[in-house]
């Protein structure tokens, strides 16, 4: 599968279309209702963070495959990229309740729990790239 879609996030409409694209692909890959909700919610969190903290950026959603021995597994990968201010202390933002905007501060730690693989790459003044994968079981 080489399906990939990229959604620009600059307004709240962008958040909605990123979620929509994620839900469609998750459905296509074969994820059930609960996982679809988890994936869509994770996209919503990452997209909103872009909108709130970096002003604009992009969400890339793609189907991924991994072969280990004879086992082949399918999954969905979300990449959230922005050229915003970056995150100073990654450990801090991964703690439940840490927020600089009066939010719940549960977004990033929540995404990590909603998804299987999670990675933050952020450079101050340069931007942030967050990738998260959910594997189909």
């Amino acid at each position, binding site marked *: 599968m080489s399906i990939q879609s990229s959604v620009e996030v600059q307004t709240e409409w962008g958040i909605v279309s990123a979620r929509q694209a994620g839900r469609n692909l998750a459905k296509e890959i074969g994820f059930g209702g609960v996982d679809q909700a988890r994936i869509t*919610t994770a996209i919503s969190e990452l997209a909103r963070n872009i909108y709130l903290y970096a002003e604009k950026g992009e969400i890339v959603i793609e189907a991924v495959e991994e072969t280990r021995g004879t086992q082949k597994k399918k999954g969905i990968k979300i990449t959230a990229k922005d050229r915003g201010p970056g995150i100073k202390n990654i450990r801090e933002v991964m703690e439940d309740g840490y927020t600089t905007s009066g939010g719940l501060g549960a977004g990033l730690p929540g995404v990590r729990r909603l998804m299987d693989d999670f990675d933050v790459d952020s450079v101050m003044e340069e931007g942030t790239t967050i990738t998260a994968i959910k594997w189909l079981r």
Partner: protein
Amino acid sequence: MHSSVVQAINDHQEQLVSKWKEEMARVQEEYFKNSLPDDLVFTNNEEFIDVLYSSVRLERSEAEGKIKHFAERLIQTDWPLSYFTQGMQAFRRIVTACIVPYINNAEEDSVRLSVEVEEWVDAIVNQLVDDYSDSWIKTLELQQMALNELSAPLIPVFEKVSVMPLIGAIDTERAKLIMENLLDGIIQHRSQVVLIDITGVPVVDTMVANHIIQASKAVRLVGAECILVGIRPEIAQTIVNLGIDLSTFPTKSSLRKGIESALELTQRKMVQVENGAEWRA
């Protein structure tokens, strides 16, 4: 426009109009793939060329009024804007091809004449685009108003009990409306219990959860109580995964159960009526 151009356009009216109609037939076929109804294309073409010709002759302000009138009528019937722009471009091509060389013989500056035709066409195209986009903006504003009215209604279902059914995505704008309508509605209907039904909300992320939590705190401050109903199983799981603690928050699985407990909170209950006679436990 320069009088010699105006005169040439008038002198060649028959030839220009028939060429333009040929061109428009091609546009209908190639650009619109014959998707526009032929009878409407015919009458609209007649009026279009009539308006074009009168705008050549009339004073600018008068011409603008006439174009606006024509555009407004077609906007109402959802006639595509590109039909106009294609029509104007066709007219420019034909005029430039037929007239400019003709005037050129009369020793006029052909470049200047083409520029004049161009400016005249551009002005009309700009006006048409403005008229169309004004009407789109108006439509959008009306839809936004209608949407706002629909987006967070508070419905008084019983004395002291109201329901706010939420359907569709919640953005910042809507979250604000939810808060306003809740607080205004509670005062207006003297509600003691409000049921917020999120059955129709596709995604409950931390932002939505936060707004619901804030709203229920505010509701408590005006002396009422919120009950969250309609949490679908997959939403319940994601809320838990996100680490949002709703354990202190009154929730009920369905609107029906929510109404039952709202009645209980206001010292009432539903009773079964048998054979038309009231039956009380």
